[in-house]
């Protein structure tokens, strides 16, 4: 049975519509206008136990709203959600003991106390005996490379240290389903790597299902074999990460280095020019014409080196969103 099922999930928010200025303020006071914003429109997917799924979309696409519905924080306007066989909005203790939601910049740790004090509460809330709680804290701290940070007031920690401590607090009860909303937001490269490694290790050790949103494609490419793309509240793609390249990037990148300066050469006849940098040229070529084009390049030009690759996933997804905007 899937760990997470979203079945035609929709969410409509009613928001006040106010014009700027004094007149707008007075009108808003006397004749308040509202409009409905469809944040999520009939999104359906499921996630199996142990699966790590990237949940992608530009700002305002509906990712966080979907996560909030799946965790039971907000009630869907239509459709249904099921997590580990429970309806999230019922907020049954049996479900809450098995899930967690980590939000990049939102903390559950008590700001003025060391992390260990917050963990003391979490351990009691989840009915963990002392020795078990101590073992789990030690294990998680070891995986995240935390030591003295646990006894310093949270307000004195760097963003990266705080995020790692948040992860310890969020995972102390060993949840089976993790909803992670921008867990690496604002972290430096080293901290991002540490969090990614930790999540992979946690997933492998505990077989947890993970739904991860991130604006850092490195998070997605490092962790997720499957991605779900959402835009303007609608699901645009659900499948393998590499499939997204095949589906939304019909062009491949051909990079070659010439023996001599290519002054006056017309590369347009081979494909779309992506960039030229001295003797190094990058072209975008349709997949169907790739073999023929490479043959022609090797025959017609004095090529020292040639590589063929997919364009970076960031570029593909960026284009996908741009296309959706149009």
């Amino acid at each position, binding site marked *: 049975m899937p760990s997470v099922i979203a079945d035609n999930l929709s969410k409509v*928010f009613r928001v006040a519509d106010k014009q700027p200025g004094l007149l707008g303020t007075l009108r808003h006071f006397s004749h308040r206008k509202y409009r409905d914003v469809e944040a999520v429109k009939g999104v359906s997917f499921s996630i199996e136990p142990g699966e790590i799924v990237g949940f992608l979309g530009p700002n305002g696409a509906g990712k*966080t709203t979907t996560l*909030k519905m799946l*965790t*039971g*924080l*907000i*009630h869907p306007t239509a459709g249904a959600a099921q997590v580990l066989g429970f309806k999230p909005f019922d*907020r049954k*203790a*049996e479900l*809450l*003991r098995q*899930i*967690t*939601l980590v*939000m990049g910049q*939102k*903390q*559950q740790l*008590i700001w*003025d*106390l*060391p992390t*260990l*004090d*917050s*963990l*003391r*509460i*979490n*351990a*009691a*809330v*989840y*009915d*963990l*005996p*002392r*020795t*078990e*709680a*101590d*073992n789990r*804290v*030690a294990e998680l*701290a*070891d*995986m*995240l*490379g*935390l*030591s003295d940070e*646990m*006894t310093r007031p949270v307000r004195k920690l760097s963003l990266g240290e705080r995020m790692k401590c948040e992860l310890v607090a*969020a995972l102390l009860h060993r949840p089976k389903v993790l909803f992670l909303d921008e867990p690496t937001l604002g972290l430096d490269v080293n901290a991002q790597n540490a969090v990614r490694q930790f999540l992979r290790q946690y997933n492998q050790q505990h077989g947890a299902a993970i739904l991860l949103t991130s604006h850092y494609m490195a998070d997605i490419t490092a962790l997720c074999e499957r991605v779900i793309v959402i835009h303007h509240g609608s699901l645009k793609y659900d499948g393998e990460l590499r499939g997204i390249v095949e589906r939304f990037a019909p062009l491949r990148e051909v990079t070659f280095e010439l023996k001599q300066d290519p002054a006056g050469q017309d590369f347009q006849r081979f494909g779309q020019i992506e960039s030229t940098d001295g003797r190094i040229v990058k072209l975008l070529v349709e997949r169907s014409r790739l073999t023929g084009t490479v043959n022609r390049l090797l025959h017609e030009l004095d090529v020292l080196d040639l590589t063929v690759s997919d364009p970076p996933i960031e570029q593909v997804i960026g284009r996908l969103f741009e296309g959706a905007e149009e």
Partner: protein
Amino acid sequence: MKGIKAPRHQGTKGLDIVAHNETLGPSVPWSLGAFLSKSRAFLVTYYAMMVEYRAEIVLWAIATCLPLIMMGVWAEAGASGHFSVNRVQVVRYFIAVFFVRQFTVVWVIHDFEWHVVSGRLSPFLLQPIDPAWRFYFAHLGEQLARIPAAAVLFVLCFFLYPEALWGDAQQSGWWKPGVVNVLLMLAALHLSFILRFWMDYAMSVGAFWFERISAAHGLIYLPYLFLSGMVFPLQVLPDVLPGWVYRLVMWTPFPYMMWFPAELVSGQSLSAGQIAWGFAMLGGWCVAMYGLSRWAWRVGLKHYSAMGA
């Protein structure tokens, strides 16, 4: 192993949790052991948090000195003989009111509003325990942290009005409330805190609809100020207003939040029947406010938009 070697060695005794059993097993959220374990963890942690704010707490304790100001006003009025209470009774009453006030301050509406607006309520909603308990134990932690400041101010009262201890020409004799009365006062004091907590919590839940709900606290604060006995001893009401007003006031929850616990030790004018009636009213209003807050919570949760999170 790098990283921490079980945080136990850090001098904080690690996660010093009272284990109610040694196996994880299925959840038993309301076994006595689990309840005590949770209560202890919350209380110890929130006390530690409030100790971090000790400077503010001293200021809060001083800011709740209104009963001492009113004591100065009413001490003179009591001495005039125009009311049914004399100077010593008034002074003892307001010292008791000051004591009760120190341990019944409730600020949940401001804290709850901040948690809703900042999105910090969301992680707590995803834990298998009602967030109300966090707020409740935060208040208890604050009360514990307030004890030293309150004690200093309490002793100061007797320096300013030593007649509270040994009486004066109008009313001679030491102030000896008796152990039973003190215990009854402490019980009434905590029930009064519980009543105020759930009353304010019911209002706090309005943040699910209106976000900025703390201003609504003023609606309750005004009747609380005048009908709780913080500004004047309620027994003087019949001296200045028709008797039915006094009887009506006694059906509201407010007199039991301040006047009743204070009167248990100050005037000792309450009969056994009146004491029983006072506790019945306190208990009844506690149940009513708890029920109201739980109902408001269930309804309000559907309006929560988890903003800022």
